[in-house]
């Protein structure tokens, strides 16, 4: 045995510990580096527009005036639509797979969902533009206008005004929902499957129906995992670029109608980097990226805080 080997085996514990610290530290370093780097490369825009960038809806490359508001608005609205549809559906799908479906059905559908989750987003984008958008324009949007339009439902009907063009905020939200649905369902299925059978049995043993066991015990038991799954999906929806860029319409516009074209932070970045000739234009785009990073960061923090609070109040199992 060489001296080196001797040294290694003697100090293995220490070396290994330092190695793990180094690896963990790298993650922090990368994160800090990203913040600093983005901020540095956005410095012109930060200096020029300050925090007002966040609520300014100007976006005029000719006048070199930039504001993030329409992009933030579009990001939030499309994500909200996606979450409002995907989360409840995922809960139902996951519960069906774990609690109700025949094991064979559960296996087949479960694999299909995992496959869906693996489809690259560009495919969703293309499918959205060439297949889904025409369906929206010809069937879904006119139907919504007829049933929920301004004449039928004052107020809320504002959401469904305008020409049914197929692309726009609503289509982007729906495509996003479709993209995160398999992902959230798959995680939730695993969460539900982890609830110990004996806990469910004792709930059934009290004389509960399947529905009562599900919403009073299974859902609560898995609440941390469910929230985790939702926020993972949320993070994906916030940052999703390709699919959204294809169908959102890409206009710096804030409109109460979901049929109108809009944009999101990610789609703006994807569309406009190539055109950014002026330094201030480029810096503004990077500033926009920084805003997205901070948004995601705070959302994850909020998720963790929420889970910690729940844990304290119910001692959930996971």
């Amino acid at each position: 045995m060489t001296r080196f080997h001797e040294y290694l085996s003697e100090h293995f514990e220490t070396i290994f510990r330092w190695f793990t610290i180094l690896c963990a530290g790298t993650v922090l370093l990368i994160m800090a580096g990203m913040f600093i780097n983005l901020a540095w490369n956005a410095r012109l825009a930060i200096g020029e527009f300050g925090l007002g960038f966040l609520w300014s809806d100007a976006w005029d490359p000719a006048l070199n005036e930039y504001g993030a508001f329409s992009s933030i608005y579009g990001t939030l609205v499309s994500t909200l639509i996606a979450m409002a549809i995907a989360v409840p559906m995922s809960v139902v799908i996951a519960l069906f797979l774990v609690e109700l479906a025949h094991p064979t059905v559960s296996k087949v559908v479960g694999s299909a969902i995992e496959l869906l989750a693996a489809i690259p987003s560009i495919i969703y984008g293309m499918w959205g533009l060439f297949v889904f958008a025409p369906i929206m324009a010809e069937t879904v949007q006119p139907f919504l206008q007829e049933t929920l339009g301004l004449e039928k439902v004052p107020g809320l009907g504002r959401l469904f005004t305008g020409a049914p063009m197929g692309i726009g905020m609503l289509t982007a939200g729906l495509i996003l929902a479709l993209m995160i649905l398999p992902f959230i369902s798959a995680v939730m299925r695993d969460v539900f499957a982890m609830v110990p059978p004996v806990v469910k049995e004792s709930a059934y043993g009290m004389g509960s129906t399947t529905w009562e066991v599900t919403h009073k015990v299974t859902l609560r038991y898995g609440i941390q995992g469910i929230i985790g799954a939702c926020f993972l999906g949320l993070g994906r929806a916030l940052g999703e670029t390709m699919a959204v860029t294809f169908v959102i319409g890409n206009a710096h516009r804030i409109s109460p109608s979901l049929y109108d074209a809009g944009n999101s932070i990610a789609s703006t970045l994807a569309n406009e980097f190539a055109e950014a000739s002026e330094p201030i234009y480029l810096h503004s785009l990077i500033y926009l990226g920084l805003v997205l990073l901070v948004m995601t960061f705070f959302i994850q923090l909020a998720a963790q805080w929420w889970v910690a609070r729940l844990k304290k109040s119910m001692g959930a199992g996971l």
Partner: protein
Amino acid sequence: MSDVKLPLYGEMADPTPKISVRGLDFFYGDHQALFSNDIDIAPNRVTAVIGPSGCGKSTHLRVYNRIFELYREQRVKGAVLLNGENIFAPTVKLLDLRRRVGMIFQKPTPFPMSVFENVAYGIRLHYAVSKSELDGRVEEALKGAALWEEVRDLLNRPGTALSGGQQQRLCIARAIAVEPEVLLMDEPTSAIDPIATAKIEELVEGLKGKYTIVIVTHNMQQAARISDFTAFFFKGYIIEFGATKQIFTNPHNKKTEEYITGRFG
């Protein structure tokens, strides 16, 4: 006087059994786990179920509240009468049967909610009660499970934050809160320490005035201490059933004797 209707436990308890099992077979798919079990459970008494691992004690118990029906490959043949009514009759309401026949498991199974909510769970399920009545019933159930003094100030804490023994008594409180007639306990003390075990044994003694108790145990002393009747299971058969005293002092069957004297199992 030849009384043909004498229950299997003889003359030492109420002549009308709480539960009567006749010709019970049980199948896990193709695997038969119980073979023509016959037994009578005396009302307001403790019946112990003993036998080596894998002999079918849990399987037998899980028929009484039809909890096995959660699994589609599990089937029974034979009759189980609760107060003389077959629990498999179409007139029997499954959810009400499970309220009447409560179950306590080996490991405590508190639900992911507060101590109070754990006990209130079943009450809310089966009874429409006002908030103040609910409070009263929860308190009563916790007192019934000898837990009230320990948790009266912790009612809003998660049930999982209690100690193992307290959690098990919480599960007992949860079960008795819905006013069952029978309590099934499947090795309720095998996962907790001796002091907590002693508390639960004491509790069982107290509960039998109100409830009929069937308890599975691997602890011979425990069976001898707390039960009035004992059934010895072996390979899916009920080999011997009788008064606990007789089983432990003068077993008729050689297998029973070997088991209780610790020669196998």
